[in-house]
């Protein structure tokens, strides 16, 4: 009997307080009934047989979970809305972190490329933790209050089949991740080009040579169009023919500027006094050229990809 008492106590510990006494009382009655049945079959029951019976019933935690299954923090009905909100907010925070750290870097804070990346990552994680916790708690509260109200999936009450977008290829869907990484890159580029104008009092000089900076400043309207396009993508989330054509034009402009800058040498205006000894000017120039080659290759890839999509659509 002591073994049964210990088993019941172990199950009790895993149960919520308000149901603890009731469930354990009933569980005990059921176990004793099974032992009685064994006794009436065999005459007596050994400790080993009671232990076997309890083993068959299962681990105390498993039994407790069968009686009181855990409630998910966010209900299945709210899960799609929860994930969408989470991705949107984290995407915006990533863009803000990129802008903030780029501002600090351009404002004179000494940091290598690695430190710059680490800065974006830690700034994003710091605000991301807070956002994740807040959103999750908010949806957990909503889940509790909605539990008895409706079984309908949130955000699906007002829709009509006529307003659904046309069925298209799988590539037509634009992921939030792509949109936010594009936005962060474009904002980074804008800050890189225009930072000295934003902070005229700090005396900060542009990192680009005069010729490169002139080209990039003329290129800014294209970046603005690309940013507006990304924001529009947030609204539609589907590639259309017009959007593909605009993207080809933007990618072509990026390709032209990358090739144009590659032909200029040097592209960067490097302050030799500030420069750390181990980083030679040649290495930095070569890195800049590598970045430009990569940008040109990505732009070429996007032109080919979008042209093929345009032809097939």
């Amino acid at each position, binding site marked *: 009997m002591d073994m049964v008492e210990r088993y019941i106590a172990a199950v009790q510990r895993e149960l919520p307080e308000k149901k603890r006494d009731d469930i354990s009382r009933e569980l005990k*009655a059921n176990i004793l*009934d099974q032992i009685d049945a064994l006794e009436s079959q065999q005459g007596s029951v050994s400790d080993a047989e009671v232990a076997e019976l309890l083993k068959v019933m299962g681990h105390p935690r498993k039994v407790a979970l*069968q009686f009181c299954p855990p409630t998910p923090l966010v209900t299945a009905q709210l899960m799609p809305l929860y994930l969408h909100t989470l991705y949107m907010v984290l995407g915006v925070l990533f863009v803000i972190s990129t802008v903030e750290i780029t501002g600090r870097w351009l404002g004179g804070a000494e940091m290598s490329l690695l430190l710059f990346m680490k800065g974006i990552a830690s700034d994003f994680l710091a605000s991301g933790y807070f956002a994740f916790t807040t959103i999750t708690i908010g949806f957990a509260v909503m889940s509790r209050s909605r539990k008895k109200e409706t079984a309908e999936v949130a955000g699906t009450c007002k829709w009509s089949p006529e307003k659904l977008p046309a069925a298209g290829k799988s590539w037509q869907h634009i992921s939030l991740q792509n949109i936010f990484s594009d936005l962060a890159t474009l904002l980074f580029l804008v800050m890189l080009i225009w930072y000295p104008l934003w902070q005229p009092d700090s005396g900060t000089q542009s990192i680009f040579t005069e010729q490169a900076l002139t080209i990039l400043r003329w290129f800014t309207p294209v970046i603005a169009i690309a940013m507006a396009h990304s924001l529009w993508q947030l609204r539609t989330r589907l590639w259309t023919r017009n959007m593909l054509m605009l993207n080809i034009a933007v990618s072509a402009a990026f390709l032209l500027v990358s090739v144009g800058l590659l032909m200029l040498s040097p592209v960067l205006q490097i302050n030799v006094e500030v420069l750390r000894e181990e980083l030679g000017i040649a290495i930095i120039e070569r890195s800049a050229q590598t970045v430009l080659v990569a940008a040109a290759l990505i732009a070429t890839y996007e032109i080919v990809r979008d042209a093929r999509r345009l032809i097939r659509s």
Partner: protein
Amino acid sequence: MATAPLDKLKLELRRGVLVLAVLASLREPHYGYSLRKQLQGAGVDIDEGTLYPLIRRLADQGLLDSEWKQGEGRERRYYQLSTLGVELLEQLTQEWTSLNSAIGPLLLRNTNEEQH
């Protein structure tokens, strides 16, 4: 080879049917163990880990009434269909009969086609 998917499908298939079997058995009052024995006797094998929480859930939903009673020197919780449970069992029985009469011939037809 196909044991895992089969077990999963069997579990899904049995889940709803077990509710019906339990409700039908609780037209008469039963405590947990006696209910399990009655179901086993009728050919419905159900383990304790499934049956006892299921009865409590049905009671929480208002389909069963429960009462602690002393019997054979020990207390036991007896369950029986509530008024709501009786109504629901009637509707579920109709649903079951209608499904059974639709699916039965469908399964038989497929078996016959395989044999030919």
